């Protein structure tokens, strides 16, 4: 159990059933045991059902990961999903997609930008855009946990390169497990230890597991208007009806 003065940790990239092989409630059960305060169910959009019940006894956020072939499709899919989910992620990899996601700015997270080609997927221009528009980079530890040899080496070195840009431009970032089943979930401390392998210090790793995810949750709440403007004091039901503000 997390202590009162400890930060709350959130794992923002899990793929429960029907994409992965553990149901959302099973993921929630295991994540609770491991000390997470919440997880985000982030299926790729072809598996997104939208209405499936999420367990009520654990903070599990509804998200979607958009896999688009080009910038135009990305925009259309963003239009379609933005209002239906709390967390919108873009399946990165292709450099034009990485850039389009950061230019658009409606996405919350850009996942694995390095997976497309030989580069790490992020350059100083994309990093600046991401910092500007508050698009968080996802440092998904799934390839580090799952793979051996070449592909893990590539993932680690891309993460190292990307984190250097994150530091320089103040880009938001999240550290996630990318779990496809509950066997892929790890406790927050283990993710911190893994994140240190590519050059983060402990404070930075904690920030990626708690501070930035909390920012994303805050943006998703109905009381949030824009950066720096939030409806306080009234409860959110009344402000949705329009008599609060």
């Amino acid at each position, binding site marked *: 159990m997390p202590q009162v003065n400890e930060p709350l940790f959130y794992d923002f990239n899990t793929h429960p*059933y029907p994409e992965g*092989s553990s149901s959302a409630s099973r993921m929630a059960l295991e994540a609770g045991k491991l000390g997470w305060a919440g997880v985000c169910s982030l299926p790729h959009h072809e598996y997104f059902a939208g209405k499936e019940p999420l367990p009520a006894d654990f903070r599990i956020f509804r998200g979607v990961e958009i896999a688009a072939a080009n910038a135009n499709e990305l925009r259309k899919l963003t239009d379609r999903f933005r209002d239906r989910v709390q967390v919108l992620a873009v399946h990165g990899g292709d450099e034009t997609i990485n850039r389009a996601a950061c230019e658009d700015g409606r996405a919350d997270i850009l996942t694995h930008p390095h997976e497309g080609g030989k580069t790490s997927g992020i350059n100083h221009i994309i990093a600046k855009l991401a910092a500007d528009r508050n698009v968080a980079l996802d440092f998904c530890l799934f390839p580090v946990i799952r793979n051996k040899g070449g592909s893990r080496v590539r993932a680690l070195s891309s993460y190292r390169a990307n984190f250097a840009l994150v530091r320089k431009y103040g880009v938001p970032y999240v550290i996630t497990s990318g779990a496809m089943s509950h066997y892929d979930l790890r406790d927050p401390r*283990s993710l911190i230890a893994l994140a240190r392998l590519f050059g983060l210090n402990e404070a930075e790793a904690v920030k990626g597991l708690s501070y930035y995810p909390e920012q994303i949750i805050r943006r998703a709440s109905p009381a949030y208007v824009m950066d720096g403007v939030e409806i306080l004091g009234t409860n959110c039901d009344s402000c949705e009806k329009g008599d609060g503000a």
Partner: protein
Amino acid sequence: MKILPSSLRERKRYVAFRLIREDGEATDRKALLDEIFFATQTLLGDEGSSEIGYRLMDFDGHAGIMRVSHGALEPARAALATVYAIKGNRAAIKILGVSGTIRAATEKYIVSENVETVNILSRQIRNVRMSGNAVREKGDEIEVIPDDREVLKRGNTRYLSVTSSDIVTNRQE
């Protein structure tokens, strides 16, 4: 040879962990250690492994206590997190806590599990979102062989893992 006085001995940390394994069977010490050494070797290499200085103090097939050196706790955690399978069976090491003595680690973190694992021969599950046969249950946790096998390939597991709430809510639908 006379042992070193306690003040000169290397400082240690005791990591209490639980091993979960897909088939639910007990694991023997050697298989676990092989897997941990292999994971550490591939992640950190010889130099990193030597720094950690693993020693499995106690292990009953499901939970145990691993001694690591005080300064190398972080890399040890990272290496333990990369254990992915044991002898072809999906597995994961879940770290329960870390202490400075074996006694504290045992008392604080090792809780014996009293929940029985029950193998079900076959129970049909059919509802809006999933269909298949339940094969094992343990408390709330239920393992299912789904009719759609693609999902197992994507998740790289043998069973679809659900909880009892998935099945109950679905009956109401």
